[in-house]
Every structure is written in structure tokens, then in C-alpha cells.
């Protein structure tokens, strides 16, 4: 063990930075309460997924080097996103030739990088949460977090500690919501079909609130719910766990 408080570098993610900083602040709060010292390295921008999934290895590698350098000094990199954490943990090393210095550094960072909820449970062993949220919620398992990082029980474990909160599982919680990064704008109709099915399941679950660990998925589902006139509220799971649900949900709920 470190013998001192772990220094966590928060990887904010480009979507959280641009659209919903409260997720970042909720993450900071959770990490500090768990006994970490939180820093936000300033030279971080994007994990590189858009370039990576478009086949642009060179720009992806450049962004990876930038991220690696930015987080070199901290004990852990933690991101409130399964897809960004998955990118760093699983894919960064594959960008560089075996035996190269870049590869070595990428592997070193990968081993210290975590998705937020997984970090709280698997590394910090978080016990109680000082949060209450007496609502019925359902949880969507984002694909990267689920399949690349095996995150499934951890969010449910922590949600169980939120006072008054009840989790109701939806059918096909682990089926893709149709976001897929650039997919939703490259193939909007197929993406729409997928998100339509997803929110039908969300609605059928009887939940009042939808939670997940990835803002891309959440925006996609929230945007569809509101377009269909639904009153179901959408938040990032970190907001609920940190007890920071005072602000409006994603997409704001009712206008004005």
C-alpha cells in the first residue's frame, strides 16, 4: 500500500468537459470521500476513441502519448466513462510496437487506469455512501464498460447503498443503446432503431430514472426519451452516488 492518500488523476472525458461538468465534480467528490487526493492534469483532452474507431492510428497514438505524459505522475487515472477507461486500459498498449518505450509506458498507465465505479469498489473498497435518492431507477450497462472492463456488479453494489433507492432491472440492459460514437451520425437510422428499442425497455421497466456510467450513452437515451415525450429522468450514476442530484437531469427535464 502507498502509506499515504492515493493521488488520482481525473480523466474528465471530452463529453463531460463540454456538456455536463457536474459529473466531473461528482466524481471528484466521490474520490475525495474515498480518501483520494484528486488532480486534474491540464494537458488532457481526448482519449482518442474517435480517431481510433475511424482507423486513424497515427492521431490515436499521438493522443495516447499526450494522455500518458499528462498522467505520468499520478498513482491512478480514473474516468467517469467505461469507454474512455476501456480505451486506455485495453487499447493504448496495442497502438505501439512490442518492446518499444511507448508500449512500456502505455502498459504502465493501462494498469493504473480505471473506470470510476470500478475504481471505487475494486480498488478503494468503498463502503458506505452518504447519499439518499428515494427513486426507482434502472441501470443501462454501457458496452465498453461491460465487455472490455467487466463492470456489471459494481454499480449495482454501490446503488444498493444509496438510501431509499430501488433498482429495477430492464429487459436487455446489456444490449447496445445505439450510440457507438460516430456510428450514431454515420448510420442515424439504424442507431435510432436501436435507441428506440432501448427506451421501450427502459419505459417498460417501470423506472422513473435511468442511470448509466457513460455520458455518450446517456445523451443518446436522454435525447430519445425527451423526443418521445417521456418524463423519465436521466443521470450519470456518479451524480446519484455522490448525492449530487440537486441540478437538472440530462436534457433538463421540463423546459423553462
Amino acid at each position, binding site marked *: 500500500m502507498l502509506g499515504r492518500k492515493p493521488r488520482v488523476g481525473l480523466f474528465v472525458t471530452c463529453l463531460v468537459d*463540454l456538456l*455536463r461538468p457536474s459529473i466531473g465534480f461528482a466524481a471528484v467528490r466521490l474520490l475525495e470521500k474515498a480518501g483520494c487526493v484528486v488532480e*486534474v492534469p491540464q494537458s488532457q483532452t481526448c482519449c482518442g476513441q474517435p480517431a481510433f474507431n475511424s482507423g*486513424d492510428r497515427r492521431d490515436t497514438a499521438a493522443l495516447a502519448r499526450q494522455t500518458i505524459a499528462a498522467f505520468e505522475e499520478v498513482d491512478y487515472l480514473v474516468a467517469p466513462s467505461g469507454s474512455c477507461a476501456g480505451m486506455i486500459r485495453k487499447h493504448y498498449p496495442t497502438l505501439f510496437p512490442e518492446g518499444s518505450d511507448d508500449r512500456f509506458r502505455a502498459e504502465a498507465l493501462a494498469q493504473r487506469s480505471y473506470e470510476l465505479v470500478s475504481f471505487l469498489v475494486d480498488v478503494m473498497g468503498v463502503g458506505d455512501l452518504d447519499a439518499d435518492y428515494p427513486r426507482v431507477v434502472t441501470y443501462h450497462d454501457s458496452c465498453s464498460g461491460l465487455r472490455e472492463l467487466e463492470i456489471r456488479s459494481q454499480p449495482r453494489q454501490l446503488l444498493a447503498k444509496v438510501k431509499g433507492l430501488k433498482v429495477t432491472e430492464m429487459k436487455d440492459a446489456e*444490449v447496445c443503446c445505439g450510440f457507438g460514437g460516430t456510428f450514431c*451520425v454515420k448510420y442515424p437510422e439504424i442507431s435510432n432503431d436501436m*435507441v428506440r428499442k432501448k427506451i421501450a425497455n427502459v419505459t417498460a421497466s417501470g423506472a422513473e430514472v435511468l442511470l448509466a456510467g457513460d455520458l455518450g450513452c446517456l445523451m443518446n437515451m436522454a435525447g430519445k426519451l425527451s423526443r418521445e415525450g417521456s418524463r423519465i429522468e436521466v443521470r450519470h450514476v456518479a451524480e446519484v452516488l455522490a448525492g449530487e442530484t440537486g441540478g437538472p437531469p440530462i436534457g433538463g427535464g421540463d423546459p423553462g
Partner: protein
Amino acid sequence: METRSSEFKENATRALHDAELQRALENVPRGFIQRRLAARDRLPEFEALRDEARAIKDHTLAHLDLYLERYEAKVRASGGHVHFAADGAEAKRIVIEIARRLGARSVTKGKSMVGEEIELNEALSAAGIQPVETDLGEYIIQLRGEHPSHIIAPAVHLTRDQVEADFRAAHAHLPRERNLDEAAKLVHEARLVLREKFIGADLGITGANFLVAETGTSIIVTNEGNGDLTQILPKAHLVLTTIDKLVPTLEDVATLLRLLARSATGQDMSCYTTFSTGPRRPDDPDGPEEYHVILLDNGRSAILGTPFQPMLRCIRCGACLNHCPVYQAVGGHAYGWVYQGPMGAVLTPSLIGLDKAGQLPNASTFCGRCEEVCPMKIPLPGMMRHWREREFERHLQPAAARYGLKLWAFLAERPALYRLATRLGNRALRLWSRGRPRMSMVPLAGGWTRFRDFPTPEGATFMDQWQGRRSNG
């Protein structure tokens, strides 16, 4: 089969608006997924078998030339004929030559995706030889002049109503008032009609699920028994197959068989798994007098030694199709060629070219479900990404997407500039929203807002707020 993979997007749009197709596609997740899960749960060794299966295939591919030699020798030793075909044209030439020599006028066929690949039926018809598809799904689509929409369930895109209409139109000699309101009655009618064809066929052509090098055996796996009637009744049995079907030993094939039916239909074993070795023996009372195997390449050898080699492990179970949310949304015909879903997205560019099939590996969210269920642990999303890399290198992507991405990367690689850009973008979006919490229209984001709302940014960016908090102590 002419390829329409380059029209995937248009095909997909049509498919999404086809109500009858959408109704039929609901059967895909309902049936296949649950059954596979149940079969997997009933076999504690399932996961361990996947690792063994992958190792068996990888070993075989690494020694493919030697196993092929072995297999060839064994087939000949059992009295069979082996023919090699580098491409589809040669394969068709051989089939027609054999058919002509036999004086064949009617040929029964077991289900063969390879036959679809090379357009065998068209060649037979052009040569005045009538091919009759005997797998019920294949028979139905043959009546409709369609191609299969699923590698193991060719007619999964059709409803019962559609099949009834097709049968009434095709079997005009049967009484019009007959009742066909249940699937059972349609199956019974197909049995009667095709029974005559089985008996009258001069030549039977099947594919092969596996080829066993140890014994020179070809294996077919069916539930209907049509592949068996196809091969044991006519004078000659012709196996049209490709070099990637090789497996070293009987024990190795047992491992793959344990995974195939479970992954495909959720059965422990298909109804009929048939091991065929050579023609009938001198004291056999039945069986074909001649046995021919056509070993076709058609692009497989070009995949060896490339990052796409794992695709050759595929045993054509269809699990990836069944679990793919994109396939479930648009069905198989949208993919425009023989192979659909994730395996189609990876294999098709190898076989018909990236310029024709480039859309397929792009139509994926990389959700990873395909890789999760693949019995051979083929890294499908990773290989789809490889194809995107090849496209990027060859500048095959649409210009707008390319420039957009380049701009994004340019900014992201310069943190100070990125902060500025995001600050401006953030402000612009907030202005555009005019105080509303979400927007139903955002310039340059039509693909998004056509179907969903876009959330207004909460406030200033996280980085700006964080800096602000830090400087305030």
C-alpha cells in the same frame, strides 16, 4: 451473386421501413439468443471448449498446406476424387463437367454458402441443368428468386404468410382449396414436393461443415436430413467446399461439433451429423457410386498471414448475427452479399474487395457482443477496426468525415487550443439553446437531432470551472 454491399445504407433504410421484415426479425433475438444461452448453461465445459476450438483451428491454419495434402491422399485412398479450384469459375467448370458426364438433368443441393458465393445455381441453369435447393429455407428463397438472409436460417426474413403465398404460386398443381394455415402444413407440403426431386436427381451437391484430414471425411450438419437424401440417392455425391474447412482429427472435429449446434440453434447436437468418406463400398447396398470433393480457394489463401487470418476459424454458426443489434435491426439482405452480420462485415471485404464492401465494417458500434458469443473467439470488432484503418490509409472514407476527424485530432493534440475551441463551442451551444435545457435542432448535427434531442451544456466547461475553483482557493 452480384454484390450490393456498397448500397448497405440504402438497403438498411429500406429494411427499417419494411414492416413485414421487422415482424419476422423479432424472431431472431427471441429464439436464437435464449436457446443458445440455455444450451451453454447446460454444458459446464463450454468456455473451456471455446479455447480448445480456437487452438485447433489456429494450429490447422498454420499447417494448412500439410493437412490439405493429408486430406487429399485420404480421399483418394477411399476411392473419392479430389479437384482443386483456385476460383469460382474453375469450380463451376468442374461441376458442370461432372454433371454433363453423368448426363445429369436434375441436381439436388444441400445448403451451401460457397455455392452462393460462386453463383453455382445460375451456372447450372445456364448449362441446362436444373438445381433444386432442398433445405426448406433455401427452397423457399429459391422460389422467390432471393438470396439467403442468414447463413443458417436462410428464410428468417419471411413470415409464414409470405411462405404460404409462395407455395401456392409455385405448387400450382396442388388443390387450391387446401389448408396451409400452419407452418406444419407448409413443411409437410415441402416434404412431398421435394421427395420427388430427391428421388429423381442424377447428382447431389452438398457443402461441408468440416473436412477431416485424418480420414478424408467430409461432414455435413443438418436438422432436416435433406443433405443426406441429397448424397445417398443419386449416382454421384459432389462436395463443394473451401480449404478453410480442414480439421486434423476426428477428436478435433468432436470439439467443434460440440460448439456448433449449441452456438447456432441451442441444440446439443443437430439432428443429422453425417460423416461421408468416399463412394459406396463394394458390398454397400446403397450410397453414391462416385464421390467428388472440390477444394476451392476463392480468396481464403490471401487471408493467411494477414491480420484477418482469425476470420478463417469461423465455423458458420451464425451466433454473431443473432446477437448483433445491427443485424436484428436490418436483417441479412442489407449486407448485399452471401455473408451477413459481424462475420459478413469482416469476411466480405476480403473476398469481394474493400472498395465494394467498405460500409459493412463501418456499420457497427463495436458493442462487442459478437466476440462475446463467437465459439471460436474471433476478435470481430478488432478486425472491423482493421478494415477501417485500411480505408483510412486508402482515403476511402467520405471527405466530410475525414476532415471533421482531422480537425478534431488537430485540436485535441494541442491542449491550449483545445481549451479555447471547447470554450467557444460550449458558449455557442448555450447561445443557440436560448435558455432551453435541450435543443431539437443543432447546426451540423442533423444526423443526431433528426431523431433525438441534444442536451444544452450545463454551464462553462469542466476545465474552466475547475480552474475557477482552484484560483478561488
